[in-house]
């Protein structure tokens, strides 16, 4: 292009100068020729440079690392790592504590104690949680618990993302959405210790089993969700029939905002199954949470739950917890909890001579979060629900726990 233009102007100049004043024109011509040559040289240089550049990028491409051609890094799941550990003080020896009984619910030597069991130091668990989109229809979640001597699949399930009409199916092993805190993992509880009624009716993992869940969110202004689950029912405390899948749950949850800052969430739940001895076992749950938001980082939360188990044999047992948590700012929060076994109509003959009434527990905690991903919590509890070595024994416990959540960003809970 440059070349052509230069040549054209050269010829034009030559034809113009044909007749007159040859000498002056000759000098002019010479000037023009040098200019043209200069121009041509410039154009050639430019072209060479371009070619050089092309060659360089080409060579660069050849030199480039091709080992990443099949890299799948972009498809790696989100991974989060949770560590939970504690230092515990208790006015009871470890052996005595391990063999506690809660009359009518847990017999001595029957309790499972995966968290904060020992006086002194405890590494409760390391949890590895992974999440990934499978395809346009499914997401997958796994939560592995790594304990000192065991590997446990806490949860592993698929979740649909493309069902119509507000429906969603979960399948795999998962924590049931029964009640308010059943589906929450230990590190997302407001207190380090599990509510007594949950521990008494379901054990430390609560209702967690292989199964399938269907949830439906109603297309209404007021949030309303209905869910049903069919689960294997391997929970030894309430649903332990090992011969067949025996556990079915159903629940309704609803929430509304009373003001912009005051919201309320309530739920009614039912779990229907069979015990290890094939007795019918029904657990009813009612829960209520009020949350007043006082600022971006400040809130007052009042949460309560009541659970009752009715067995085919006519046994009726129930209990509740109610707790208030005050989140002062980003860093500090505190809370108190009161718990009570409200009904215990069951065979208590093995505890004859022991006072089995007034089973209650009081807990208080102070929490400091240096940052969103780490948490220090000091918890004190006065537990008057236990029988140790055949005697009603009240237990004082102090727990200082540290919880770390690293990796993929966990979400803030309601």
């Amino acid at each position: 292009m440059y070349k052509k233009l230069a040549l054209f102007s050269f010829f034009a100049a030559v034809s113009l100068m044909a007749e007159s004043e040859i000498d002056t024109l000759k000098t002019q011509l010479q000037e023009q020729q040098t200019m043209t040559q200069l121009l041509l040289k410039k154009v050639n240089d430019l072209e060479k440079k371009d070619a050089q550049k092309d060659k360089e990028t080409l060579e660069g491409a050849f030199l480039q690392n091709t080992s990443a051609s099949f890299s799948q890094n972009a498809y790696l799941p989100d991974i989060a790592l949770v560590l939970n550990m504690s230092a515990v003080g208790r006015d009871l020896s470890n052996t005595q504590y391990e063999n506690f009984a809660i009359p009518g619910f847990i017999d001595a030597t029957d309790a499972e104690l995966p968290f904060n069991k020992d006086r002194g130091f405890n590494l409760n668990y390391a949890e590895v949680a992974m999440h990934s989109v499978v395809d346009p229809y499914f997401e997958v979640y796994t939560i592995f618990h790594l304990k000192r001597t065991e590997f446990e699949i806490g949860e592993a399930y698929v979740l649909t993302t493309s069902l119509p009409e507000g429906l969603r199916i979960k399948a795999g092993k998962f924590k049931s959405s029964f009640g308010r805190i059943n589906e929450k993992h230990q590190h997302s509880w407001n207190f380090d210790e599990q509510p007594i009624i949950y521990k008494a009716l379901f054990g430390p993992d609560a209702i967690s089993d292989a199964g399938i869940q269907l949830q439906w969110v109603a297309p209404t202004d007021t949030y309303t969700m209905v869910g049903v689950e069919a689960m294997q029912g391997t929970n030894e405390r309430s649903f332990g029939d090992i011969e067949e899948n025996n556990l079915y749950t159903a629940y309704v949850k609803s929430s509304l905002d009373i003001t912009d800052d005051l919201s309320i969430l309530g739920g009614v739940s039912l779990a229907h199954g069979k015990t290890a001895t094939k007795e019918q076992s029904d657990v009813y749950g009612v829960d209520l949470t009020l949350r007043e938001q006082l600022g971006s980082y400040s809130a007052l939360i009042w949460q309560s739950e009541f659970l009752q188990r009715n067995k085919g044999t006519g046994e009726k047992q129930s209990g509740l917890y109610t707790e208030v948590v005050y989140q002062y700012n980003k860093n500090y929060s505190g809370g108190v909890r009161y718990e009570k076994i409200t009904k215990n109509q069951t065979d208590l003959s093995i505890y004859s001579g022991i006072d089995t009434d007034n089973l209650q527990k009081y807990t208080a905690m102070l929490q400091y979060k240096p940052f969103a991903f780490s948490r220090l919590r000091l918890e004190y509890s006065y537990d008057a629900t236990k029988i140790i070595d055949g005697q009603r024994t009240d237990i004082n416990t102090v727990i200082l726990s540290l919880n770390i959540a690293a990796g993929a960003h966990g979400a803030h809970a309601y």
Partner: protein
Amino acid sequence: MKKILWASLVLASSLFATLKIDTTYATLGAVTQEVGGDLVEVHVLGSSKYDPHFIVPKPSLLSKLRRADLLIINGGGLEVGWLPPLIRSANNRKIQPGAEGFLDMSHFIKMIDKPTSVSRAFGDIHAQGNPHYVTDPHQVIVMAKVIAKKLAQIDPSHTQNYQHNLEKFLKKWEAYLKKFDLKMSQCTTKKVLQYHELYNYFLKRYGIVSVGNIEPLPGITPSSKHTLELIGTVKENGVKKILQDVYHDKKAAEFIAAKTGAKVVVVPHDVGSVKAADTLEDFYNTMAKSICN
């Protein structure tokens, strides 16, 4: 009688045809309303009086997400702490990430302040760059164009309406920007201190330098050591204004102000975060007024 029947039928069908759009924050909502006009019903999920990084995932937000035809998010990681579980539990396939009814506005914005290295040792940094682009009034044009395109995509029968609304709005907005930029060119504030890097897009647009942040690291509460350092910085640079958002504690800013003679001004970060910022125009006007006057 027939007429009434017809009228109510038309009314009913037009009501039925209204697109339900959820936006995570209020400025996105205001722009959506401009472009969508009567054809859309906009719900803003995150209250603008609170920290946009820490919206409380109230269950009532689920009922909004459940019925949405389109969800417009700010993106850039701003919603990562509260929105994903809500999307998961709202059971609405239309607004799942990757679906047609999910729009991440940050993909259309030239993000600034992209960190060269990412670690939580630096606090809760924004790994994808600064997501607080709504503070720059020029970004409104990008937002409006993208929203118009998205609306036409999910509701093609009203493409012309959206195009018409867009043109009308852009004309109005460009005229507004002309005046606004002129006003800003007379802004005498040249250096400021802010709490979080919340106003960087605005400051960059109008050549105002931010000399530092009151939070020592993103998401970390002010420390006395860092605050003392800032007093030095403010004095050295002759900073006159300390930009305070509406949701953080003012104590640190007021302490620095008292030691340096700088003034603490509350600056909205979103439409509606202060009373005087109820509309798009008023939001930017209030921002300009508080920073410049």
